[in-house]
């Protein structure tokens, strides 16, 4: 599954006390298949655990998932924690980020202000997140990936 491009490491986890595991399981598979080295911290991951893993694995990206509607509280101060640990990674968040049916643009603004580089809703395909990360890390897709995407 690992592609022959230079491997970049992404740290993946569900923040707070959220136990929704399906999304990150699929993300793990998708990012692995796309050639990334994936460190999956699983559900109920604390801000500190994210930071620690990012340092240990020298991660290029930290991908945070949240599906139970309390993402905003769970992410307060998260970028401070990352900074304190000298983590200099791209940060994404995705999932059901707000309880109720707020406009997503409002939600996006909120999480951008918290410091995330990109914000995705729960309908996002893993491919979109991968394409975005490739752009942000300036990686071009491999031959085989291109073939898959256009087939």
């Amino acid at each position, binding site marked *: 599954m690992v592609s022959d491009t230079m491997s970049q490491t992404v740290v993946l986890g569900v923040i707070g006390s959220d136990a929704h595991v399906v999304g990150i399981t699929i993300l793990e598979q998708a990012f692995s298949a796309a050639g990334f080295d994936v460190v999956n911290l699983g*559900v*109920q991951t604390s801000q500190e655990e994210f930071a620690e893993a990012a340092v240990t694995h020298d991660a290029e990206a930290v991908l945070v998932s949240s599906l139970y509607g309390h993402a905003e509280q769970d992410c307060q101060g998260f970028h401070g924690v990352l900074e304190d640990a000298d983590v200099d990674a791209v940060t994404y968040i995705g999932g059901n980020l707000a309880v109720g049916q707020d406009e997503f643009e409002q939600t996006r603004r909120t999480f951008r202000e918290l410091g995330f580089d990109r914000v995705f809703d729960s309908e996002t395909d893993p491919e979109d997140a991968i394409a975005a990360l490739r752009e942000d890390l300036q990686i071009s897709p491999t031959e085989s990936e291109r073939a898959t995407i256009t*087939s």
Partner: protein
Amino acid sequence: MIRDERIPSDELRRIDEEIRSNWPTGADVDFEDAIEYHESLPDHKRFADVLESADKPLLQPRAGVPRLDDQIELLQYLLEEGQADLLPTTIDSYTRDNEYEKAQQGLDKALETGDDTLNGFPAVNHGVDGCRELIDAVDAPIEVRHGTPDARLLAAITFAGGFQSFEGGPISYNIPYTKRHGLEETIEKWQFVDRLAGAYTERGVRINREPFGPLTGTLVPPSIAIAVMLVEGKLAATQGVRSITLGYGQVGNVVQDVAALNALKKLGNEYLPDEVVVTTVFHEWMGGFPPDEARANGVISLGGMTAAIAQPDKVITKSPQEFQGVPTKEANSAGLRTTRQVIDMAIEQKIDIDGIEEEQDLIERETRCLMDTIFEHGDGDVVQGTLKAFDSGALDVPFAPSDSARGAVLPARDDDGRVRIFEWADLAMDDDIKEIHRARLSQRADTEGRDQSFRMVADDVDAISDGKLIGRPQGDV
């Protein structure tokens, strides 16, 4: 080293006293008084007897609210308007985390404001008398449903409070529910729960125990679910439980679901000791529901149809409001009545579908592989075998949030919509069985003109909520 052995009486008493001291209401539990209370209950409130003597599937919803009077009203409504046969009392999340202080705050606030500040009934806080008030007020058997890794105090209080059925188990209430509770720890705690149920059973009060079959509720291959049921059934039997209801969650393919329920019943009777009465429960689809009550009714009805064919002893129903979370009592009743109508219209029909026996045979062979590996890992001891098999990945549950399971196995549907295993990881399975799965998934890949990949898994997870069974590629692939 923890093993599959019955807790001695003095140890039972010691733990019982210890856990009852964790919260004030624990002090009100008196075993002899509890036996007397159970003996005073009329026949139609004896859970095991009602369930085991039924001649067609009994229907049971899910329901729990914080206040006692509201819970009584809710259950009476589900009994009268929903025509439920069996009733639940679903416990709140704080109690599941043994946070009785927080549950008390929630309950106090609920009593003060009238709002449902907890997502269930805090039975420990209501105590023995509160539970008995509920049992007395509602004219049907009631089961405790929760999701508690350490359910010892909850069991002590609800058993003494007159409940005669208790859902859960050390694997099924650990792996899908929590990240960090060790499996060894939950096995030890559930041995006490089962031993306590066994103590009642010895005195003629048969407490029904129901391992939670759907596990993570997300495309769980039948054999994995059944193996977990057999392990939990065996553990309960060792502690003296004599009425065990093994569970299974609908995957949506009728042939596979009927075959799985048949296999569950057959293997349950085979693996569990003769003195245990084995019954089965079928959970209507536990995965994501369509965000549309009309479509949700279709999902519920397919469950009813499956139940009419397989005839499990019990069906746990869903409501058309499943998508949005806790349903109103009206929607909960509607789910019961829709299921009832389908079952009652279909159950007298002879509907023998081709291929059920072959599928059942495959499920049985897979389950035996898993049971064999458990026995081997434990040198014949089921507890050690389970711990070591989960540790090695020889036993695994897909999409498990728990650190106690690898969660490395990945399922996907085949071209007929049956759940197969796409990624085996280290699951202990004979090669010829793996080959069957591979061939079935390859057939699907051909149909769809794409490679087997995690995309199928992802598409399948969302398929039913998107209105289909199989997550086929949409539009141009």
